């Protein structure tokens, strides 16, 4: 295999299975622009006859007959049902029973429930995954069990790959909590309500064939139509699209971990001290323990200072919904609801806005929600002395997480903050070089740990303000040395040469590869 180096010095194969790889050249360099649209997109549909279309199919067999999938097909899914999803496993099992092989699965994310796909990976039904790989499937990928080299993309990067025709989907299977027989669908109603349904939007617009699967068929017109029926070929009513108790976690209890709370408190203090917390500012914070607590602490500071935010972006939780009701937030721009309060708010409150990957994160957009953000609070499995961030692999080399919206939010926000404990169990978070680069240090401004804040030297403005406010600042190398005194210095994991997954930057260039573990 021939290799070249990208601008971060990471080795990138020149070509994989006929795809010429473009090395990452910088967060905004866009070296793939000229290749835009090189792949095939959906052929124009014939103009429909003068008749009401009949899209409702009787059963799975009729649906799969009509979709007419062959060996090597690419099928896609969304992850709004999260760990309660019942559709991905069902579709793959049925295609396997029909004897299909070498499928490419292109989900927006996978969850532990999808470990049920492992036997199909081992038997050759699934040859490749283009999308996030978590838990058991990520580990199988790291062990080299997936036949082809997989591709990991951010939510924005995936949307772009579909838009550019780089990721072509033969059939999109869209689980819909609420749909009509024409294919209009949303996630707001029904027994499996999940809130927004936007992650499936790019697939519905570009896939060759689009199928809606619903367990709540409503009379036409189902509205609002998050997925337009005009893009949908077939509709199948099923008994259940998933386990609704796992679709929304329902737990929004704040963490009691003093270390997490310390990091959250420092994060909120930093945001205020940096002058970001002004009237009309906007933020994105995930649904992890530290992010939720940081949101709560930030809200306390906003209340005290009489500051109101214009919007919060990303996943929605009860915490954000309560701030919206209180008036501390003007609106929520929501890609995914994490609990029942958020699902209800999305359905009922017009200032709770349902978004989609193009509007929120689209790399080839004329700006997206992420570019309107003043601050993003994101996590990491590792960071390194160059502020590069790893969210995909653990220090032992195992691929265990997807990218989500991480790189999109980091590239867009005016200030990108990474929050993480400085070590987990015995494993230090600050490394000389991260095991895998997901996000370049170029777009990372501050790293907040329980032992202090490290600010990217490029952001002298931020460090000056933080210093003035008396916040504990330290350099990443000092932090690494301090933590090594507690944990010891870890060995490097052993890899084989073979790349098992590509980490694609938002623009389609390759920022890093994950290699097969030598174990």
């Amino acid at each position, binding site marked *: 295999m021939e290799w070249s180096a990208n601008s971060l010095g990471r080795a990138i194969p020149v070509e994989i299975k006929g795809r010429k790889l473009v090395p990452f050249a910088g967060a905004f360099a866009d070296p793939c622009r000229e290749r835009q649209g090189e792949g095939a997109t959906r052929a124009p549909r014939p103009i429909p006859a003068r008749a009401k279309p009949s899209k409702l199919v009787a059963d799975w067999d009729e649906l799969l007959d009509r979709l007419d999938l062959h060996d090597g097909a690419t099928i896609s899914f969304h992850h709004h049902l999260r760990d309660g999803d019942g559709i991905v496993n069902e579709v793959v099992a049925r295609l396997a029973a029909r004897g299909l092989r070498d499928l490419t699965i292109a989900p927006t994310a996978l969850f532990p429930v999808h470990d049920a796909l492992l036997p199909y990976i081992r038997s050759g039904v699934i040859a490749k995954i283009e999308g996030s790989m978590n838990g058991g499937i990520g580990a199988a990928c790291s062990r080299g069990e997936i036949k082809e080299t997989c591709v990991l993309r951010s939510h924005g990067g995936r949307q772009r790959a579909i838009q550019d025709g780089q990721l072509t989907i033969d059939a999109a299977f869209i689980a819909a909590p609420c749909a009509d027989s024409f294919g209009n669908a949303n996630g707001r109603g029904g027994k499996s309500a999940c809130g927004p349904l936007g992650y499936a939007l790019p697939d519905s617009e570009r896939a060759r064939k689009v199928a809606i699967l619903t367990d709540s068929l409503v009379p036409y017109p189902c509205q609002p139509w998050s997925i337009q029926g005009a893009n949908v070929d077939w509709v199948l009513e099923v008994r259940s699209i998933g386990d609704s108790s796992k679709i929304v976690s329902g737990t929004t209890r704040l963490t*009691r971990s003093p270390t997490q709370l*310390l990091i959250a408190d420092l994060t909120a203090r930093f945001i205020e001290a940096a002058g970001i917390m002004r009237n009309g500012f906007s933020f994105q914070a995930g649904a992890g323990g530290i992010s939720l607590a940081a949101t709560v602490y930030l809200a306390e500071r906003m209340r005290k200072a009489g500051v109101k935010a214009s919007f919060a972006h990303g996943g929605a939780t009860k915490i954000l919904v309560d701030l919206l009701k209180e008036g501390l937030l003007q609106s929520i721009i929501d890609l995914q609801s994490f609990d029942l309060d958020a699902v209800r708010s999305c359905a009922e409150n017009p200032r709770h806005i349902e978004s989609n990957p193009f509007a929120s994160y689209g790399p080839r957009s004329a700006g997206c929600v992420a570019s309107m953000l003043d601050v993003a609070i994101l996590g990491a499995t590792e960071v390194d002395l160059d502020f590069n961030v790893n969210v995909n692999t653990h220090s032992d080399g195992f691929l265990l997480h997807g990218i989500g919206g991480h790189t999109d939010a980091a590239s867009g926000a005016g200030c990108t903050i990474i929050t993480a404990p400085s070590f987990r169990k*015995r*494993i230090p978070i600050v490394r000389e070089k991260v095991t895998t680069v997901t996000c370049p240090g170029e777009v990372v401004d501050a790293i907040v740990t329980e032992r202090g804040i490290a600010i990217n030297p490029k952001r002298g403005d931020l460090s000056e303000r933080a210093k003035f406010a008396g916040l504990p600042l330290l350099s990443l190398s000092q932090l690494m040395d301090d933590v090594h005194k507690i944990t010891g210095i870890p060995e490097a994991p052993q890899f084989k040469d073979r790349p098992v997954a590509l980490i694609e930057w938002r623009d389609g260039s390759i920022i890093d590869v994950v290699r097969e573990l030598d174990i």
Partner: protein
Amino acid sequence: MEGNRFIAGAAAKSDCLVAYERGDAPMSVVVRSSVGALFGKAIGATVLRVASEFGVSSGLIKVDDDGALDGTLAARVEAALRKAGFVRLPSTASATPLRAASSRGRFRRARLYLPGDQPHLAANAGLFGTDCLIFDLEDAVVAERKFDTRILVRRTLEESLMLGDREIVVRINPLSSPYGRDDLSEIVRARPHAITLPKCESAADVTEADEAISALEKAAGIKQGSIFLMPIIETAAGVLSSREIAQASPRNVALCFGREDFSRDIGAVAPPAGGGAFPAKGIESLLARQMIILAARASGIAPLDSVFADVEDEEGLFLSCLDARALGFAGKGVLHPLQIPIVMKAFRPTEVEASRAEKIVAAFDGAAAEGRGAISVDGQMVDAPVAEKARALLRDYREEH
């Protein structure tokens, strides 16, 4: 311990289970670890290092690890080997740890109790702004884990890299229990700043500890009298002897109250919710608290209040701290780091304290400029530790305002 197998530690997060099996074959080590890819070699090396400190060269050591820090691992190996009867070779005695000294009159507003046998709590315990960190060998540790725990705490204190500049305290078991003496002989050489003595009932309880510590200090080459004592009073008999207890040893720097055991000891039963005519919670211990405060203040040491047990009730904690302060207590025990900022807020410096501190600092700095070390301000002797405490008080006061 089952025949030839000796086990220490726990299969828990940030801990490890170590088993030593006697045998004639040369020493071998088997490591199973969730961080094996990153620390497998380091774990093996530590096991061998500790084994060599005990002159062990045969048998098998098995480690089942979930990310224990090196000091935890070493403590677990040491405990397993000592259970098998091995004794540390004198030539390998650990170096006496270097620790900044504490001072008699320092702040002890919040003192955080850490269960001694939960190593994952220790790593960050120095970060939460408590004045004192108390490693508990007593109530938080069940009998069958006392042995492993005192070794773990000693090792933690010997390294103590992560503990910051807190006052490091160990709560031992009462000397009347089967564990107290062993606790002392394990812990003193790791030079904690102070030792708290639970269930003190008489001056003799304190003098007995004082003498035992003196002997151990001497053996370890530690300056005589450098380790402070904080007796805890938690029985009716203890309350009635509180003055004698407070004055029983020059090591005493504080007198602590333990409410739960005290209430049980005097047979107090809380009325059902809404019942009873008394206006306040804790009424059963009011006299005891006041006697402890009087005894401590009359002896020139700090009276410190019990913990507030409901860690979810932040409002209740704050009010109980205000009450404690109103009575004359100088600090409060803390069970969860989240209680610390609340205690600190309740015990924040007053304007009167701040202006007095300002006067002390100014007088001390002025004297220092003239080359004098100790002076008198309003009749009180002011030396470097007193001036330092005044500076700390001023910093806190200014942060608030």
